[in-house]
């Protein structure tokens, strides 16, 4: 055996940094007391458990460190902390016994003040111990060699485990810090629980405190119960650090890594990571390698999201799953399952339910659950399953699912994660008719931009106020004529109301997002996005600017846009706090007051904002005022594919107005979707849908009316319903206005599509956006 060096336990010990250990005072105190009381034969034993990476190993190593450095108390024997991890052992008992001996002898010599031996030489180490006055080990070693030569693994293991107890009457006694104890169940040819059976008399004596630690307490406690030892052990569950300890750890990490994070952000950073020390260390390193400075909450969230989607936190969990489930298919199944449970909070607490959700064969399902339990991701007590609540793991699973199953890009997933965080506590987007009207006006304005140039002052409220504050509109108009600094506006290809990333939770929208092209060519190089918020409040507060900036950064992240390709614009209603104007300037946000916007609109020959009060809105079924439209009607049976007839009629009707084929396609598609929606959801008794087409030179209005009373549960299977629900969203993309009104007589969907570039009035506010009745789930 001479000259062989096995590595394992020492790796864990060598990577422990005492200066990185914070908190856990209560646990340390209880464990220290148990260790010290071993000297008087009243030492307790502990089963320490908790999720993987929570800090159990660090706790044991800290305890070992403290016990080693504690001063001798009188004539009492000293506790010798013997740390041994079973996670890296070879599964053959002979290899384990050899490794165990090596570690014991080597740690004991160090405890007694000797240097670390360079190679594993058990005879030499026993001789050295004898020289220090500790005899008796050589005989046991000889017996061990005999069993090893005979290939008797069990006897060799019994022999090795008895080794530490040969020191009776010495001025020290061993305290066992056995880490990753659940791995002892994997020894070849050794029955589960045999280790505890061997150790049983020593545990019972009270002289040798055993501190067993592991991620899978279920297996170990079952063995303890079988051996009648369960009552001897106290259970100690380890969770995240206390808030205060977590902050102290941040302080130390930031100082050592020279990372700058404002103190006000540290509690947020702690909570984000579940106050788990290993994550804090990883994120600190990530920040160090990426930027070394975090200035605000958005920056922090972005760095966290990057780490969990492509950085250290990601690598950590990826390796964990690759090691736990080497088979790719099984790994995919395990990740999908855990994602459903941890991210989607699928209610699950029984083995049967878990097997069903896994959707695998019973054998494979049990293997996956068993691996979860072994690794500490799941606990099974009295057939009740509980899963680990780890926020970083949940985000990792979300990434793995979105990327692996749905094929999304890393930056998209990162953006979703940031969004989910930032959306908490976000102010509600402005609603209501007036706001919707103002948004519609800005939308129309942007559609007219078409590479035209406007004075920069129209987009800079701070300078505008400085120059024209208190002056009348005429003075302003005249003053603006001399403005030479101009901004070239992009050619806008589409303006959509709102921006929605994908993850659940509250909506997190802009009022408008416009896709534009800088030089007229619709190419990737020319693409520029305008994110716009029309401030609903009378007064613009700094908080709203912050919130807008957060969403802009999110949008840039999601789209992978460089800073100069995202233009940010806020349109004020009335007043603004000076701080918010400064903040907007600082973030590079264009800011326009309603006066500026009025000038803007004049340039494009559009309606004024906040002009004369609006008259009462037209009744939903009335045609638009102005030129008398031509009306066509059609009654369709609610029958598969009869929507195609509606589309053909629309095509014929539109042909009278000589509109381009793309517009015709849009009208056809919109009416198809509205018909399908009525067929599927109306619960109509007549089984008919009534359509009206109102054609005027500048637009077509389409009305799809059913006599349904509301939502009718679909008869389609869950599988075929998957990916559904696009109808209304598509309609909104296809036409210029959509309005849904549900009344006593049924539901009417009104759609309007303009032809060509005729200026239009503001959009009607959407009924459903105001919380009105939504007659069908997908509408």
């Amino acid at each position: 055996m001479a000259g062989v060096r096995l590595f394992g336990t020492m790796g864990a010990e060598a990577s422990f940094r005492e200066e990185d250990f914070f908190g856990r005072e209560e646990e340390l105190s209880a464990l220290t007391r148990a260790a010290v009381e071993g000297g008087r034969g009243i030492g307790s034993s502990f089963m320490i458990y908790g999720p993987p990476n929570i800090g159990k190993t660090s706790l044991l190593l800290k305890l070992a460190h403290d016990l080693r450095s504690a001063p001798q108390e009188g004539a009492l024997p000293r506790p010798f902390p013997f740390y041994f991890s079973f996670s890296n052992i070879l599964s053959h008992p002979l290899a384990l016994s050899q490794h165990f001996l090596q570690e014991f002898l080597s740690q004991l010599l160090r405890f007694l003040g000797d240097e670390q031996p360079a190679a594993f030489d058990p005879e030499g180490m026993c001789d050295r111990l004898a020289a220090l006055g500790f005899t008796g080990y050589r005989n046991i070693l000889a017996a061990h060699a005999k069993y090893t030569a005979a290939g008797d693994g069990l006897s060799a293991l019994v022999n090795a485990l008895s080794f530490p107890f040969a020191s009776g009457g010495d001025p020290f006694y061993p305290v066992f810090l056995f880490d990753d104890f659940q791995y002892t169940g994997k020894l070849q040819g050794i029955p589960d629980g045999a280790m505890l059976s061997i150790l049983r008399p020593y545990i019972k004596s009270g002289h040798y405190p055993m501190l067993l630690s592991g991620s899978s307490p279920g297996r170990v406690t079952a063995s303890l119960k079988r051996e009648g030892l369960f009552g001897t052990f106290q259970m100690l569950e380890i969770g995240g650090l206390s808030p205060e300890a977590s902050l102290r750890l941040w302080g130390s990490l930031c100082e050592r890594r020279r990372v700058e994070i404002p103190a006000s952000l540290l509690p947020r950073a702690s909570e984000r990571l579940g106050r788990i020390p290993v994550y804090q260390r990883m994120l600190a390193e990530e920040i160090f390698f990426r930027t070394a400075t975090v200035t605000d909450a958005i920056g922090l969230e972005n760095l966290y999201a990057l780490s969990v989607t492509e950085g250290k936190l990601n690598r950590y969990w990826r390796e964990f799953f690759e090691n736990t489930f080497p088979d790719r298919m099984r790994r995919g199944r395990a990740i999908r399952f855990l994602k459903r449970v941890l991210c989607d909070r699928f209610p699950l607490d029984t083995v049967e339910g878990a097997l069903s959700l896994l959707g695998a064969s019973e054998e494979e399902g049990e293997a996956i659950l068993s691996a979860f339990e072994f690794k500490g991701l799941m606990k099974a007590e009295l057939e009740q399953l509980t899963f680990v609540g780890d926020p970083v793991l949940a985000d990792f699973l979300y990434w793995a699912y979105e990327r692996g199953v749905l094929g999304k890009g890393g930056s998209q997933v990162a953006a979703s994660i940031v969004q989910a965080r930032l959306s908490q506590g976000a102010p509600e987007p402005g609603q209501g008719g007036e706001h919707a009207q103002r948004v519609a006006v800005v939308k129309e304005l942007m559609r007219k931009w078409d590479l035209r140039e406007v004075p920069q002052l129209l987009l800079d409220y701070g300078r505008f106020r400085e120059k024209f504050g208190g002056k009348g509109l005429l003075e302003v108009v005249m003053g603006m004529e001399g403005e030479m600094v101009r901004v070239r506006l992009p050619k806008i290809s589409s303006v959509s109301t709102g921006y929605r990333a994908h993850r659940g939770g509250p909506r997190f929208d802009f009022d408008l997002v416009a896709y534009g092209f800088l030089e007229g060519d619709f190419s990737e190089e020319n693409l520029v996005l305008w994110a716009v918020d029309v401030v609903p409040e009378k007064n613009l507060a700094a908080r709203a600017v912050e919130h807008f900036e957060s969403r802009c950064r999110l949008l840039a992240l999601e789209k992978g846009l460089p800073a100069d390709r995202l233009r940010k614009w806020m349109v004020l209603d009335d007043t603004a706090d000076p701080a918010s104007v400064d903040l907007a300037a600082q973030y590079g946000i264009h800011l326009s007051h309603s006066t500026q916007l009025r000038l803007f609109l004049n340039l494009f020959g559009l309606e004024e904002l906040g002009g004369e009060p609006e008259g009462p809105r037209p009744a939903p079924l009335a045609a638009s005022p102005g030129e008398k439209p031509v009306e066509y009607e059609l009654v369709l049976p609610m029958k598969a594919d009869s929507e195609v007839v509606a589309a053909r009629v629309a095509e014929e009707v539109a042909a009278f107005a000589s509109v381009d084929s793309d517009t015709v396609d849009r009208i056809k598609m919109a009416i198809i979707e509205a018909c399908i929606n009525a067929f599927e959801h109306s619960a109509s008794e007549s089984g008919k849908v009534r359509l009206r087409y109102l054609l005027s030179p500048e637009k077509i209005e389409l009305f799809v009316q059913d006599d349904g009373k509301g939502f009718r549960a679909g008869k389609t299977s869950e599988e075929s319903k998957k990916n559904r629900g696009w109808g209304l969203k598509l309609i909104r993309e296809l036409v210029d206005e959509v309005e849904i009104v549900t009344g006593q007589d049924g539901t009417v969907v009104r759609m309007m599509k303009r032809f060509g570039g005729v200026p239009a009035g503001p959009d009607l506010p959407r009924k459903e956006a105001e919380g009105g009745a939504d007659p069908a789930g997908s509408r």
Partner: protein
Amino acid sequence: MTENLTIRTRVEGKTVVVYVGGYLNSLLGEEVEKVVRELFDAGIRRVLLHFGETRLVNSIGISFVIGIVEKVMEREGRMAFCEVSRINRDLFRVTGLAKYVPSFETEKDALEYLSGEV
């Protein structure tokens, strides 16, 4: 209206071109899904959906296409679209399909893309 169910397939190297003709609604969507599933079961991993003969599309048809794309990605296949009309391109953009599956003007360009190594 079963005349809308027009699907043809053609093998080109390791790729199978699926011609989706007529009205892409739930019936046709289901058929396309079935065809693609059978191709995958038979070991084909590269599929080109050809929309040159598609006259109309509805959201249910699109939902089937989304389902097909998810399954192809899940099974590590490659996919492309070609000859997609302007309006359908817009719909694919809105539904997010365009992010995951490239569209090509011509069948030739799409086949060239699919014949390349991953």
